[in-house]
């Protein structure tokens, strides 16, 4: 019944619109206004540009200021402070250009709207002007690029040697986390070794793997460099830790990495935001299938001392499931004192 009523309503509305349309067409034919070069509509349109500018401009400023704290995510990494600064510098520069060009774009239609008898200026070029507005954007952009490039070079530089290594592996549709254990060197892996009890495909014949341990969440110390070693098991994924200003694709067959220094513990952030539930999160930002939107992992940033304590409490893969190392050639007890940095993909 509702459907029928809505249908009738729409039909009535459409026929009213149709009548209005026909009437205005006929009126304009009678008045001959369609033969004029520009009539009232021209003035209305010119004025509407002004209205549009004022109303949407006000809306933009109002919303940008009101919502600032909502869209501006708190930052919790050292490089994030720098990239945020670059972001806001770019915002200032482009904001000025945005406003100036738009004011001109919407004021000109009003000021220079058609007037009978007036002739437009024949003004085909001005080399000086054109050189200026080629050179100025060039210089400004060069400034932005160079500052961006300096930041980018620092961010992508090799990680410090003492960085805490965490391996993050994406698969449909979750992340798995592996720590290198006491030696801070991850054991080898091979995707052909993956099975129900070895979801990472860790190669337990590699001595470095014997102290590796899994973790349900990413735990990292505040103020110390952390190196994410990122890989994928099936399709592309992308590690995105918004508060860390960190993003790097996880590529099957090609390990990637991203290092950073977290600056605020989870507890500190909770206090700052007055949100006792707050967690740092990892999301996936490369389309990977049905569950793309659900690949959540929690990062917990703790004080360094607490981190060491946590590390000591963790159980290695082998301790958790001795069966997976059974039959391997490696002598598990021999790990202490072995120094090796090779064979670590």
């Amino acid at each position, binding site marked *: 019944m509702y459907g029928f009523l809505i249908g009738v309503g729409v039909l009535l509305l459409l026929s009213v619109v149709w009548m209005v*349309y026909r009437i205005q067409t006929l009126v304009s*034919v009678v008045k001959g206004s369609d033969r004029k*070069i*520009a009539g009232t*509509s021209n003035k209305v*349109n*010119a004025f*509407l540009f002004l209205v549009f500018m004022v109303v*949407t401009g006000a809306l933009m400023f109002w919303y940008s200021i009101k919502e600032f704290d*909502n*869209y*501006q*995510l708190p930052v919790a990494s050292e490089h*994030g402070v*720098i*990239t945020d600064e670059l972001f806001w510098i770019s915002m200032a520069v*482009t904001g000025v250009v945005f406003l100036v*060009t*738009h004011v001109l774009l919407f004021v*000109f*239609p009003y000021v*220079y*709207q*058609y007037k009978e008898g007036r*002739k*437009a*200026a*024949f*003004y085909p*070029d001005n080399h000086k002007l054109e050189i200026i507005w*080629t050179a100025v954007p060039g210089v400004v*952009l060069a400034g932005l690029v160079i500052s*961006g*490039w300096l*930041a*980018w070079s620092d*961010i*992508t530089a090799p990680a410090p040697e003492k960085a805490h290594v965490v391996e993050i592996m994406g698969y*449909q549709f979750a992340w798995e986390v592996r720590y290198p254990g006491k030696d801070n060197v991850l054991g080898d892996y091979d*995707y052909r070794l*993956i099975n129900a009890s070895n979801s990472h495909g860790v190669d337990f014949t590699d001595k470095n793997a014997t102290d590796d341990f899994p973790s349900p969440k990413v735990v990292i110390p505040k103020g110390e460099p952390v190196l994410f070693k990122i890989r994928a098991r*099936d*399709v592309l994924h992308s590690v*995105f830790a*918004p508060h860390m*200003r960190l993003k*790097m*694709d996880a590529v*099957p*067959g*090609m390990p990637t990495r991203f290092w950073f220094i977290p600056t605020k513990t989870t507890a500190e952030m909770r206090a700052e935001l007055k949100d006792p539930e707050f967690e740092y*999160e990892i*999301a*996936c*930002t490369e*389309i990977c299938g*049905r569950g*793309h*939107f659900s690949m*959540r992992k929690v990062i917990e940033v703790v004080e360094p001392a607490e981190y060491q304590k946590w590390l000591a409490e963790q159980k290695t893969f082998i301790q958790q499931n001795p069966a997976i190392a059974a039959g391997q050639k490696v002598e598990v007890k021999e790990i202490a004192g072995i120094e090796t940095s090779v064979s670590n993909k």
Partner: protein
Amino acid sequence: MATATVAHQDTAVHEHHEHEHHDHEHHDNFITKYLFTTDHKMIAKQFLVTGMFWAVIGGLLSTLFRLQLGFPDMNLEFLRPLLGGWIDEAGKLDPTFYLALVTMHGTIMVFFVLTAGLSGTFSNFLIPLQIGARDMASGFMNMLSYWFFFLSGVIMFISLFLKTGPAGGGWVVYPPLSALEQAIPGSGMGMTLWLISMTLFIASSLLGGINYVTTVINLRTKGMSFSRLPLTIWAFFLTAVIGILSFPVLFAAALLLVFDRSFGTSFYLSDIYVAGEALPNTGGSPVLYQHLFWFLGHPEVYIVLLPALGITSEIIATNSRKPIFGYKAMVVSLLGITVLSFIVWAHHMFVSGMNPFLGSIFMFLTLIIAVPSAVKVFNYLATLWRGNLIFTPGMLFSIGLVSFFISGGLTGVFLGNSAIDIQLHDTYFVVAHFHLVMGSASFFGMMAGVYHWFPKMFGRMMDAKLGYIHFWLTFVGVYMVFFPMHYIGIAGFPRRYYSWTNFEFASAYTDLNMFVSVAAIITFAAQFIFIFNFFYSMYRGRKATLNPWRSNTLEWTTPLHPGHGNWPGEIPTVYRWPYDYSKPGAAEDFIPQHIPLSQTPESNLPHEEEQVKIELEIMKEEAELLVANGSKH
């Protein structure tokens, strides 16, 4: 031709010489006139109507996923008649189908609407008319170009109805996702059809492109030097060049993907464990695909955008009654953009895992391309300045385009900066950016073009008032849809997400997303005003005059309904550039291109006096030749 009295709106062609070209009016039947036609004007209309069909489909798909994003709790049971099994028992949209929706929306809009619908329509329609040619260099290739596109569309359309769904790996179809049926059902038959469809599309695009380039180079009428080409033609020409150079690379990428999918090669696949099974592929690189894809994908942005910029240059100059400011600078920027468009592709891949040094290089190259773009904006503004502006619907859409080009272009400065891109990559900031600068700007260019050249296409006028309403609803609507996405993007919301409720950082903004969805649906609905106006005016619109916008370019010298061959008599000769608007001294505020300088002594500029002498000599020679030829008969 020498003694002609040329009134501006008079296109009477002078037929007092023996060589009378008859309009080749052999009686066309329906099939040769409307289906397998080789007339560039009809082919253009075919592209346009097909493009409009796809725009409705693409827009409809977007309203479906906007319903999901804006109203995640809504019961979508009412869509079951349309979507069937893609609505689950709880009345929710299936997440896999959601991905298929965004994938198809992107593919359709980028390729079928904005590439074929825009470039296909206006390159075909305007190139011969504006350079003074009877048709394209090869009418047959042109016809093939359309029918390859049509076939490509049919196949893509069929893929929408597959049980496993159409391709669902995003419009970029990155492998391994697009290569593995086990990873997403759309990568089965849906992806196969996507690849076949795109292959046909590439063939269509190349056939068209080669034709456009050949036509512009070889078939310009007498006097139509490159420096007198309207900016539309420059834009179409360079677009075709970009297409010819970049589409084959997409074909290569697709071909290798076909091999990986069907013949067990490992170009893109390596070390994959999926669905409980380790695949044998090793040594491939998904990043290789990304390089190949974006080698087309980025120039594609300009394939879509340049024709729109060309169209607006023409419309803004005409309706400002002013020469386009800095014609040469406009051409040089177009050339600059053309060249640079090929060496910026990897800015889509800053965080793909490629060498960060490469990222630095591409950041520098990317921000260089902002300079010619900025020049174009300033030149548009300078053209409006001190003009005598007439707001036809075409002009309104052109101004709208400039606004989107600025708004979307400026956010490109953020995204092109690799350090800032780390955070913004694949968030809604990117969605806002490219929908404004590429999607909406090009769409507005297309609309501007339709309103402006409708009288030439169909001999009738579109209703201006409906055009104004359409413009204002769409202009405001587009900003209401895409501007808020910047906030959502800065807040870190990732794109291609079915829902954000799993994440704390993305749990806000349900209100803003709802607002965006409502705006999107209204904006989509407003397009039906245009569709009504288009089809109604085609049959019942006011009869157009020969040159309704009092424009300078050659297409307005043809009859109201030009036949196949465009000009019934001789093709007009061109004596001046296309932007002699409001020339000081001239009686009217426009002097069309086919008016000799020698006939307008009152408005000639000092440097044009030289040309007048040359012109007169040539005319004398020609007259003699004509007499000589005539006496032979």
